[in-house]
């Protein structure tokens, strides 16, 4: 017997991927249920109490502009801001906010309650399909419910196992039993792999001697996570920095046999960019010390998250090495650090739209696809939900915005579904070929073709529309202004005496970008935020042109026939890539790019080869 409600979409799991998926699905008018095993865990930040950072903010800002909630709720719950890479160009600025865990969770719950999403507290035990097509979900208490599509976002709960030293227990994260029933279904139907991650101990704030530590004060430069946030009135807290020392290193080195990772108990692949303190000491032990960032978990929380010392050592050793660190001499621990092993699905089991190849209308999003990080999970939740809506409701949506030259979500999807993963996948800006263009301050521009009132409330939508109109107005004015090299010389701006008349937009890159300066020069009023954005547009314009040309080249790829090219004659292609090209025999370059494992760089080599070949013939 099926439960009375018939859903368009059932989202299983209410973490960052699940919440975003349910939210988008609901906003696009689909009848949506969100299943969580434990209501109190909804929107829990299970690892560090912060959102954003380089690469991560980049995905989050795209989620934001697609109508997602991570940035908005993040800002509401933020108690400390920093912008990383501020000395470099805005393409790599990474705002990072320390989040009050309780506030975040409360705000998230409030938001879900206020939405039309049906929140169900129950455990999903089975996915129901007929002829490889989704028909519903089976829940432990309620029983069967019908749904046209299912988005599974169960994070690390699949066969999760946690380790402290030689102790281990089955759990997705501490305090949660792992979902065995579901795991069985997934393991039966999909290729999975075992991944590993870790978390540091949590320390009582009162037991830390802050007086001897260097504080990091929250910055106040008006840069927030969300495009729509105007201010943050929360009280701000300081973070603190301390360091490991030789004594710490010795304790850890002497006790590597009491580390789950080093004693051989854990065999799965760890994360290179998130090394445990054991890894750091073993590989880079000669350093004077490794930084530890003491991040308070909230305004009213008595816990501190010591970022930088995730480990799987025996509990006694953890306490011993912690107490060797400056400021932590008398520290008390609430929860010890541990390593988690879990199953994730090989993301090559997914189609480009995150639907599994095997079961129609069955979508996977988040950590289950082999990624790590809240922001990466959120991005996938949004992506899967939009594609579920396209599939179920036939909504109109220009999916070109998710090409890898236009968005980090696109880069993530492309990398996952084409290349798969060998370790939990985290976003880095260096993964994007078009890094100069994929900026957080222009995501509204990159997604302009799909910005819809459906995804926002009235105030948000009118803000974004107003800003776009205003920007266009200023740009039009700028482009009408003309300057000859002589004009510019008189204004103390050195340009080539090439006789070329430049418009205001082209001249902008020569100015110091302050609103005052801008007003004096062009007699146009502008906000600092917009000025920074168009200043770098002006500066990077020539590179956009170059990138665009190379992308146009790729767009022409559909016309570039490969039928008479012998890939084997291109010496720089790797064996894997050659095998794939020879197997799939793509008809044109565009198809070649769609083959799993073919990278843009490989395509470039093919184009270059084809050109060189042309030259030789001529």
């Amino acid at each position, binding site marked *: 017997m099926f439960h009375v409600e018939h859903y368009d979409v059932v989202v299983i799991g209410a973490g960052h991927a699940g919440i975003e998926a349910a939210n988008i699905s609901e906003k696009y008018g689909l009848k949506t249920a969100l299943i969580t095993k434990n209501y109190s865990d909804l929107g829990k930040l299970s690892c560090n109490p912060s959102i954003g950072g*380089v690469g991560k903010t980049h995905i989050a800002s795209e989620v934001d502009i697609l109508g997602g909630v991570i940035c908005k709720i993040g800002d509401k719950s933020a108690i400390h801001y920093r912008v990383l890479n501020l000395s470099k160009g805005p393409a790599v600025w990474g705002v990072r906010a320390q989040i009050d865990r309780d506030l975040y969770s409360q705000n998230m719950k409030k938001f879900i309650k206020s939405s039309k999403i049906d929140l169900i507290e129950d455990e999903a035990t089975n996915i129901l399909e007929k002829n490889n097509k989704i028909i519903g979900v089976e829940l432990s208490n309620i029983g069967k419910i019908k749904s046209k599509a299912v988005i599974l976002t169960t994070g690390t709960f699949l066969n999760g196992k946690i380790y402290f030293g030689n102790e281990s227990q089955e759990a997705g994260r501490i305090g949660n039993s792992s979902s065995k029933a579901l795991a069985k279904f997934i393991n039966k139907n999909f290729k999975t792999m075992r991944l590993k991650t870790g978390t540091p101990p949590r320390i009582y704030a009162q037991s830390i001697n802050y007086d001897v530590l260097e504080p990091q004060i929250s910055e106040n430069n008006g840069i927030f996570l969300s495009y729509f946030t105007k201010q943050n009135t929360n009280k701000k807290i300081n973070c603190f920095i301390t360091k490991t020392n030789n004594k710490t290193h010795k304790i850890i080195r002497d006790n590597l046999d009491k580390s789950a990772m080093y004693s051989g108990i854990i065999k799965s692949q760890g994360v290179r960019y998130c090394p445990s303190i054991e890894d750091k000491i073993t590989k880079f032990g000669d350093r004077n010390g490794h930084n530890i960032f003491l991040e308070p978990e909230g305004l009213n929380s008595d816990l501190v998250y010591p970022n930088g010392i*995730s480990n799987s050592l025996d509990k006694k050793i953890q306490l011993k090495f912690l107490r060797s660190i400056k400021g932590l001499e008398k520290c008390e621990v609430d929860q010890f650090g541990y390593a988690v092993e879990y199953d994730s699905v090989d993301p090559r089991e997914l189609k480009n739209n995150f639907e599994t190849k095997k079961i129609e209308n069955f979508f996977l999003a988040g950590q289950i696809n082999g990624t790590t990080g809240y922001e990466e999970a959120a991005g996938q939740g949004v992506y899967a939900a939009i594609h579920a809506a396209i599939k179920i409701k036939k909504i109109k949506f220009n999916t070109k915005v998710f090409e890898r030259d236009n968005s980090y979500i696109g880069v993530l999807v492309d990398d996952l579904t084409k290349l798969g993963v060998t370790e939990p996948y985290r976003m880095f800006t260096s993964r994007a070929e078009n890094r100069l263009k994929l900026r957080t301050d222009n995501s509204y521009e990159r997604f302009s073709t799909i910005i819809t009132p459906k995804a926002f409330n009235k105030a948000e939508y009118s803000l974004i529309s107003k800003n776009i109109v205003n920007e266009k107005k200023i740009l039009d004015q700028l482009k009408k202004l003309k300057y000859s090299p002589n004009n510019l010389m008189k204004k103390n701006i050195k340009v080539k005496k090439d006789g070329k008349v430049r418009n205001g937009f082209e001249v902008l890159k020569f100015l110091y970008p302050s609103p005052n300066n801008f007003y004096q020069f062009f007699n146009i009023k502008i906000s600092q935020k917009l000025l920074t954005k168009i200043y770098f547009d002006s500066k990077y314009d020539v590179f956009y042109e170059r990138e665009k040309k190379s992308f146009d080249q790729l767009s022409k790829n559909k016309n570039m026939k490969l039928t008479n090219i012998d890939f084997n004659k291109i010496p720089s292609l790797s064996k894997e890539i050659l095998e794939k090209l020879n197997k799939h025999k793509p008809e044109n370059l565009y198809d070649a790019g769609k083959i799993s494992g073919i990278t843009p*760089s490989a395509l470039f080599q093919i184009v270059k080869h084809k050109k060189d070949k042309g030259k030789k013939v001529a």
Partner: protein
Amino acid sequence: MFNEGTIYANITPIVKSPIIGYRISGEDVLFILKKLTNKNFKNNHSLLKLVDLYNYDGTILDKCSVVYFKSPKSFTGEDVCEIFIHGSPLIASQLEKTLKSYKIPGFRIAKNGEFSYRSVLNNKNSLKQAKAVNSIISNESFSLLEYNKRLLFEGDKVSGLAPLREEIINIFSEITASIDFVDDEDFNFKNIMKKIRFFFNYCNNLLHKNRTKIEQKSICKIMLIGAVNVGKSTLFNKIIDKDRAIVTEIKGTTRDFLSNLVIIDGKKFELFDTAGQRSKQGKIEKYGYKRAQSLSREIDHFLILSDKNTKSVDLKQLFYDFSVKNNYSLIKTKSDLYNYNTKDIKINHHLDRDNVLKKIKLSSIHKKYVNNKKIELNFDINEIEFLEDILKYEQDITKEKDILIIAQLIRNILDDFSYEFGYINNEDIYDRVFSNFCIGK
């Protein structure tokens, strides 16, 4: 498809000779050997065996040596056998007919370079090494042959580009780390720029040094020596074919020395016209003569000119002054005025250029010296061109202050290196990042 199927080809020319060799590579090798010899080679790898070969109709085809190399310990990394039949083209054609008669799916004659190609695919050789095999076979120049042999036996590290590739990957990794992992370690923009400038300086030096080396290598240096007024400048002018040296009848016109590059039949020569030898030299002429002498060590070949008036002591003195060994041609000038009874080359100023060139045989002199010149090379011409391409980025990168733009341009350089050395992808970069820097929290 390229990497599928078993392939065969003759590895010697199929002409009447003591031996004709065949190589077969692929997964059907053992099967073929069993068919061909009635023997199982499975446990007989890397051993030269004398066996009977059987024709497709069961008759004996030949008695000959066969060697089987078991995968991966073979040239291509696949199962390989080499068969050395008696050198009769007839036996060869019968062998091929027999091989084809087994009708093995995908069995076919190898394309040009396919064995080497498979060796690269199976990681037996690097791309550069495979290219080197090809160059060794086709190279006619001794130094390049040495270079290619070293590439083959010692690996990519021999190439002068290899350390550059390492360095640019390191630089790109550091830039990547400094952007994506900014708060994990202390990165310093100035330091990165210093490394970049060092990289380009290094490229420039390499380019300059090796271009000179290669150019020098292909040039045959010829010096004209002889008594004053014997006609060195006349011959010099005739060869270079323009009025560079002033030719007069006054003794001692060429006071220092003149040199000129000239290309004859596509071959490069540097020609030196020297001050003449005479007992009473002016100060400047003496200096010129000395300068020419000091150059003599670099000279490949001397044209020693003399005429009826030249005394044999003076000739001996010339041999001594210029340390001439057996690298010389003797030339008698003014053959229109005098009759010479020697085997020496005889010329006079009435002869046209072609005739003169024919007589002094510059082409064979070039061949003799240039091909045997030994210079330690770690670049070939293509690699030099590659360096030039890389250096086109120098201005843009070193003047730039925005690290993101620098990163973008260096990525272009990496793509160029990919083309030369094989593929460099993001993962290669991250490997470097995570092993060089303590990244992450």
